[in-house]
């Protein structure tokens, strides 16, 4: 109990003592609700933005508050407040209870006693708060210089650094009390190159669940050079072809393919509402046997890593598809409760102002056996996508799109001409069956923000080189 008090007290600026949490949860249950939860958060963000050769601004933001969730007969009531006093928390608890009670039969409450469950937040070697602002400013300035020096065609550069520290506390009427302390740091460089045929863009972005040691792990010079090179090489690009082609996807950023093609469709909230093409297919072969898909919130340092999810459940490694067979869906607490099974540690929310729902963490395709060179050599005519941007999926039909931000033609087994941007479109269940080669060169891709029902959360994804026998490329050339 004492440990719990210490733990909650470590959330600087949002100290909620254990007895207060007990009283707030008890108040939330007073009308006979079956579950109540306090989610408190203190999030700080600092960023440095350089654009057009100037440090445009340094920005800091601070968000702290608590969201209180009450479940009564399947109805979720939710209220949040930026005021962490006991009076305000109890008011929010009553508002949430009132909201949940409206369509539920009244019952009688019971007292709650919480007990601490320890968690091990990801280690931070260099807390960004300890690094002076001038150092961060120096890093983005360096990126600007290096990118501009790369080639005279580079006409515009923006470089951004940001760190966030998010401390959370979760206490619920099951007696749980746990905390997490998440530090994420990111750095990105975007370049515009101008040539005879107009402008092209190139971007490089890295982000990890770690502190300022991010910039020990990556060289700012290399990041800037690679963004600039990407923009310049696209000046020579020709319009992407249209229609169906064999597509080879390079290692790393191609993970977005699985995020869109099947990740969202495996989220239990969508499955339960029949809004997923993967509903009712557990145990069935849903993909080529080369496909083993894993979602892993424990991957050290990756963008979607955390110690406990936003419902207080420990992060976990969950195998979703094993050798092509659908093994499990992704679960949050509420959906797991309905099915009488444990949560898979995938209940996440953007902030204390949002309800948690089923979300991915770090989603990746396990590495295969094939030499990537052989995968490309086996294609007579096709497209090699070195880098994918974001995407979008309709989980009901399974159709998804994603943008290719760096792509080349494959001719006679060789990577040749660069292509302008376009989107690839496919149908998740069909594309999963058409994967006919998986490389032995697994990499995680750049950091992503996954959007769902208006909430964004940090996610990672990764793939080795892989080949899809047929996908539609949305170019403009015939």
């Amino acid at each position: 109990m004492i440990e719990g008090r210490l733990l909650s007290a470590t959330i600087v600026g949002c100290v909620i003592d254990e007895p207060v949490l007990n009283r707030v949860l008890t108040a939330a249950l007073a009308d006979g609700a079956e579950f109540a939860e306090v989610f408190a958060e203190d999030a700080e963000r600092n960023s440095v933005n350089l654009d057009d050769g100037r440090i445009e601004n340094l920005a800091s933001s601070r968000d702290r508050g608590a969201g209180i969730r009450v479940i009564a007969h399947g109805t979720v009531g939710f209220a949040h407040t930026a005021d962490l006093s006991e009076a305000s928390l109890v008011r929010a608890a009553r508002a949430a209870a009132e909201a949940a009670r409206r369509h539920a039969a009244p019952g009688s409450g019971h007292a709650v006693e919480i007990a601490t469950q320890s968690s091990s937040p990801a280690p931070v070697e260099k807390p960004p708060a300890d690094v002076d602002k001038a150092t961060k400013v120096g890093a983005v300035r360096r990126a600007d210089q290096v990118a501009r020096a790369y080639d005279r065609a580079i006409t515009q550069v923006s470089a951004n650094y940001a760190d966030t520290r998010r401390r959370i506390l979760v206490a619920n009427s099951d007696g749980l009390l746990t905390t997490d302390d998440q530090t994420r740091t990111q750095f990105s460089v975007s370049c515009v190159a101008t040539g005879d045929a107009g402008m092209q863009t190139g971007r490089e972005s890295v982000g990890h669940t770690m502190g300022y040691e991010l910039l020990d792990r990556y060289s700012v010079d290399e990041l800037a050079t690679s963004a600039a090179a990407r923009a310049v090489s696209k000046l020579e690009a020709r319009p992407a072809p249209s229609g169906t082609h064999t597509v080879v996807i390079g290692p790393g950023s191609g993970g977005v393919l699985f995020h869109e093609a099947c990740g969202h469709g495996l989220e239990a909230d969508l499955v339960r509402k029949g809004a997923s093409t993967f509903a009712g297919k557990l145990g069935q072969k849903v993909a080529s046997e080369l496909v083993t898909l894993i979602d892993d919130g424990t991957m050290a340092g990756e963008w979607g890593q955390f110690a406990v999810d936003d419902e207080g459940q420990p992060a976990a490694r969950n195998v979703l598809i094993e050798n092509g067979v659908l093994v499990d869906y992704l679960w949050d607490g509420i959906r797991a409760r309905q099915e009488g099974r444990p949560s898979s540690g995938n209940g996440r929310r953007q902030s204390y102002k949002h309800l948690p729902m089923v979300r991915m963490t770090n989603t990746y395709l396990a590495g295969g056996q094939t030499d990537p060179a052989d995968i490309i050599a086996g294609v007579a005519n096709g497209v090699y996508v070195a880098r994918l941007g974001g995407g979008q999926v309709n989980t009901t039909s399974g159709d998804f799109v994603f943008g290719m931000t760096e792509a080349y033609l494959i001719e006679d087994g060789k990577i040749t001409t660069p292509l302008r941007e376009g989107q690839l479109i496919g149908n998740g269940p069909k594309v999963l069956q058409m994967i006919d080669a998986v490389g032995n060169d697994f990499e995680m891709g750049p950091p992503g923000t996954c959007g769902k029902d208006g909430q964004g959360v940090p996610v990672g994804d990764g793939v080795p080189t892989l080949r899809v026998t047929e996908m539609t490329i949305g170019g403009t050339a015939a």
Partner: protein
Amino acid sequence: MTPDELLMLASRLAEKAAPGEQIEVACSHGESTSIRVYEGAVESLTQAENSGIGVRVIRDGREGFASAGTLDPDVVDQMLAQARDNARFAEVDPDAGIAEPDGVEAVDIDLWRDELADYSIEDKVAMAVEIEARVLAADSRIVGVRTSTYGDGAGSFALASSNGIRAASRSTSAGIGIQALADDGNQMQTGYAGDGAREPGGLDLDEVVDRAVRQALDLLGSRKPTTRTVSLVLDPRLAATMMSVIAGTLNGGRVIKGRTPFAGRVGETIASPLLTFSDEPIDPDSLGADAYDGEGLACRSVPLVTDGVLRGFVWDSYTGRRGGSGSTGSAQRAARGLPSPGVHALSVAAGEGGGLDDLIAGVEDGVLVFSLAGLHSGVNAVSGDLSLGVEGRMIRNGQLAEPIGEATVGSTLQRLLLDVEAVGSDRIHLSSGISTPSLVIGDVMLSGAAA
């Protein structure tokens, strides 16, 4: 909090400016309700109170910014200190600065409706339950509803600066949305529809139910089309989607940094002569209307393209200073973010093409678009390259034909503007704040199966 209370808070902080220092304080406070209904019962009900403050400090040509999600006095003071500290590390920029009063009188637009307070939580839940039930009952092929939602909000915004700007406003809004699931035994499809208004009484439930059902059903049996060049027919909602992407490239921030293909082309023909559009934030019928912009200057009408000729861009005060044109009162921001120029209430002028049916009748080989996917990943606003997932129905010889999906449409923003072949006379005000008629755009690459 009322606009006046917020304005007092903001003014008090702005008045702390030291000699040679500029301070701008924006703050907001609001309450909102959101309801999700599933299978006739409330799935979740959220009651929320949101506050925000953003403090911008400029000293010796250096800008710093800090923001917080609370108006607690200790945090508010901390934000001023943080913004001042951040300013020390910024680059000296002779154009840095907050807005200067320009004498333009703000129009009196009332965005507040007392009627919102007349609706109880039960009334609001009933609306979401009603549209769900009506969608489910509409057709035997409608097998479910993924979400039926209702949401509303009432809030105040105030901005005060050491340059003497004082602006405050309040507004209400309400919205509904529903996603229908249709299944014909072989295929599942979805249809989404929503509406927004200043108060619940302004929501058109009939139209939302009808559109969600029709879209889901009309897509059943869709197949991948063959790859070829076609015309796109965009109803006002889809026209708004496409035009807002284009309008997003016509802002001063992109111009001064060379990030739009239209920089330096004022006075040139960049679009079909059939096309005229502008920013009309002072049209009280637009849901994008506002009296003040995000820096406290009066909103005003800004011509963008007239009869195909580029007339100008939208500017905020910083980009306007650098670009030499001054602010057009077009700063956009939330209290917690920095201002940047943008179109508030895009308005595309009605043409003479008639209604959607007339436009369809005039197309030989085309697609009536139901949805466009991948707007954030498929449009490069710098190069202009555009590639979007598309769902809709083919048009053959002026008649609607089979539904299509798993396809993309590709072009460039530059070409889309020039390829506008017809502009409808069916202009409407949409809940997005955009007002536009239907459009027909020719010569777009439809990418699907081999021909």
